[in-house]
């Protein structure tokens, strides 16, 4: 029998019996074969001594059962690690941060409690995936869209709590921003409703988020202060139409205007969703070592040569994608307005891309570029890293280094140079060729993917590179918006203003709200008092 750290087998056996009493024998897993299913399939620590494994798993079906479990865990001081659907692959999956924790598997809590078409929201439990919410809405013919992240099997609640994001419009695409009202079970088994939910018989729990007094919802995202058992999420009324197009600029230095105008369009609401910057030149540069060197160096002479190279290839240096959702007359006018804002940029090109009216037929969905942009969950993102003609052996998963950088052309160019240099200095097998996406308002996020392997040496090397990227990015003022559990201490340590004042505040809160430190020890770098000494051992 595996046992949690600090517990005797005798005590744990007694606690397991109490857990079984609380949820039923069938829903407490202690056999190795069952617990192996809670390993992180994409763990960069796979097969190493430090790999994070569970000592047991418990699958409650209701908030009341979660309360009972927390009371038992609190009495025995058993570390528990709640996961919602456990599908947060690339960010830790269903494995705990602290090895030996008991995983609280909330997948069975999969009730969709309400979907309200008139006020466009849903109230769900943590086990509800994007696929399930989408199916529920489709089966009832409701004129509502969900905003989904790349993998559709993720939890609506879990993704919002982890500050995940999607691809439709504001405010829905930033999933924590789109949530409204929570129910949370605390470490002592108490149950709290936030916002208007604190008002018994509230009529506006999912419509008005602030409630009365301090707004505490933020404490339960990217943290370990409670177990969220219900959450409201705002949904987008089905738009009439969608169109996308790209703005293409020809010269290296045009990036500054491209990003500046794009940001202005976004911040004034003309562009109401994310955008992605790309360089159509990246392939040609990759094929030409001399030009690639010039791109990396980018002094005045190099830029002249790069512009000539792009002109000779008749290829724009940069493009930015614009997407619009709404009535045809409005989205058509928005796109035309965007074009007028770029009209003064020499040789600018505009390319119309997709145009859809809703609802769509299955055939149109199948032929669309990316259904996630149309509010339809999928797993197509897993083609990255899967066996393919370009990657005939495939990988065993992925994880992402994802710093937030300013939404300026200068920051994009600087980050390209800085990250690229780290990869070269560290002897990485890949070149840096990713461009930023504006997953959130007002910023770009770089998402640099790493393959996960079953080869220990390869994973070790990638962990070193990852940590160096975190360190160097922090030197430039760029911090991660989210990370895999293996790097939470590293990323949290970078947020160190005033002798780690924010971490000290998090710890003060942790000690007050969870004095025995039983919930998700180490998550997002927040350790309970008795484990703080070792908190930097991974960083």
């Amino acid at each position: 029998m595996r046992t949690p750290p600090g517990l005797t087998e005798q005590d744990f056996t007694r606690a397991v019996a109490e857990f079984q009493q609380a949820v039923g024998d069938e829903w407490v897993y202690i056999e190795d074969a069952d617990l192996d299913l809670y390993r992180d399939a994409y763990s960069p620590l796979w097969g190493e001594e430090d790999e994070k494994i569970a000592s047991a798993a418990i699958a409650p079906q209701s908030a009341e059962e979660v309360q009972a479990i927390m009371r038992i865990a609190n009495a025995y001081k058993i570390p528990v690690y709640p996961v919602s659907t456990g599908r947060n692959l690339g960010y830790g999956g269903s494995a705990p941060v602290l090895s030996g924790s008991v995983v609280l598997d909330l997948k069975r809590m999969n009730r969709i409690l309400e979907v309200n078409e008139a006020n466009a929201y849903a109230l769900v439990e943590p086990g509800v995936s994007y696929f399930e919410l989408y199916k529920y809405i489709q089966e009832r013919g409701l004129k509502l869209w969900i905003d989904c992240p790349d993998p559709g099997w993720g939890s609506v609640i879990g993704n919002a709590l982890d500050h995940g994001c999607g691809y439709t419009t504001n405010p829905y695409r930033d999933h924590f921003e789109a949530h409204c009202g929570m129910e949370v079970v605390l470490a002592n088994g108490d149950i709290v409703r936030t916002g208007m939910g604190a008002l018994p018989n509230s009529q506006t729990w999912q419509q008005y988020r602030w409630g009365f007094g301090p707004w505490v919802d933020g404490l339960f995202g990217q943290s370990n202060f409670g177990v969220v058992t219900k959450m409201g999420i705002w949904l987008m009324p089905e738009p009439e139409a969608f169109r996308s197009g790209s703005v293409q600029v020809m010269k290296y230095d045009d990036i500054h205007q491209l990003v500046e105008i794009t940001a202005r369009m976004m911040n004034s609401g003309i562009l109401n969703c994310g955008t992605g910057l790309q360089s159509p030149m990246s392939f040609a540069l990759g094929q030409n070592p001399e030009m690639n060197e010039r791109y990396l160096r980018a002094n005045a002479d190099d830029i002249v040569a790069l512009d000539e190279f792009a002109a000779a290839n008749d290829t724009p240096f940069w493009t930015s994608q614009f997407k619009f959702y709404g009535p045809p007359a409005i989205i058509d006018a928005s796109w035309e307005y965007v074009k007028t804002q770029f009209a003064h940029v020499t040789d600018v090109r505009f390319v119309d891309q997709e145009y859809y009216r809703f609802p769509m037929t299955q055939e149109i969905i199948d032929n669309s570029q990316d259904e996630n942009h149309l509010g339809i969950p999928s797993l197509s993102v897993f083609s990255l890293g899967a066996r393919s003609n370009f990657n005939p052996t495939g990988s065993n998963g992925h994880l992402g280094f994802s710093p937030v950088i300013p939404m300026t052309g200068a920051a994009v160019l600087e980050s390209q140079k800085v990250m690229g240099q780290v990869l070269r200095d560290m002897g990485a097998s890949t070149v840096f060729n990713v461009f930023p996406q504006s997953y959130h308002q007002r910023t770009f996020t770089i998402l640099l993917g790493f393959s996960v392997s079953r080869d220990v040496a390869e994973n070790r090397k990638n962990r070193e590179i990852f940590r160096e990227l975190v360190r160097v990015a922090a030197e430039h003022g760029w911090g991660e918006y989210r990370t895999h559990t293996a790097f939470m201490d590293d990323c949290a340590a970078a947020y160190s203003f005033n002798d780690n004042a924010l971490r000290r505040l998090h710890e003060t809160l942790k000690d007050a709200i969870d004095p025995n430190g039983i919930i998700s020890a180490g998550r997002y770098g927040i350790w309970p008092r008795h484990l703080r000494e070792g908190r930097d051992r991974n960083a």
Partner: protein
Amino acid sequence: MRKANDAWNRALTIRGCLVLASFLTATHPVHAQDPGAGKVVFDDWCRPCHDVGPRKHPGTAALEVLYKGEKPAALEHRLDLTPELVSFYVRNGVSIMPFFRKTEIDDRELADLGAYLSPENLRKVAQ
């Protein structure tokens, strides 16, 4: 590469047999497998990656590269999948496909899924 893949698959099959042995000795009550219920499991858990057509279906796309036309890439077009092999991959994963917990696909559902993907059933469905 082909040789390496073959060796890998053989190794998996051997491990699969061991896993099968443990399934057979497990104490689950005998359950008449229901291919219809198995189709629901397939729709919910497998279809997003393993539907027909490689575009947008990473599992089908990956198997197309692996088999190079020697076998159908879509699982529902295969006529050689045993319930044991299906169980093995669901509980062990392969490549980027993760393994699945019992709160997602329980043992009964797994048996139903095996029945749905069995050659006997898929032949019947094709008719």
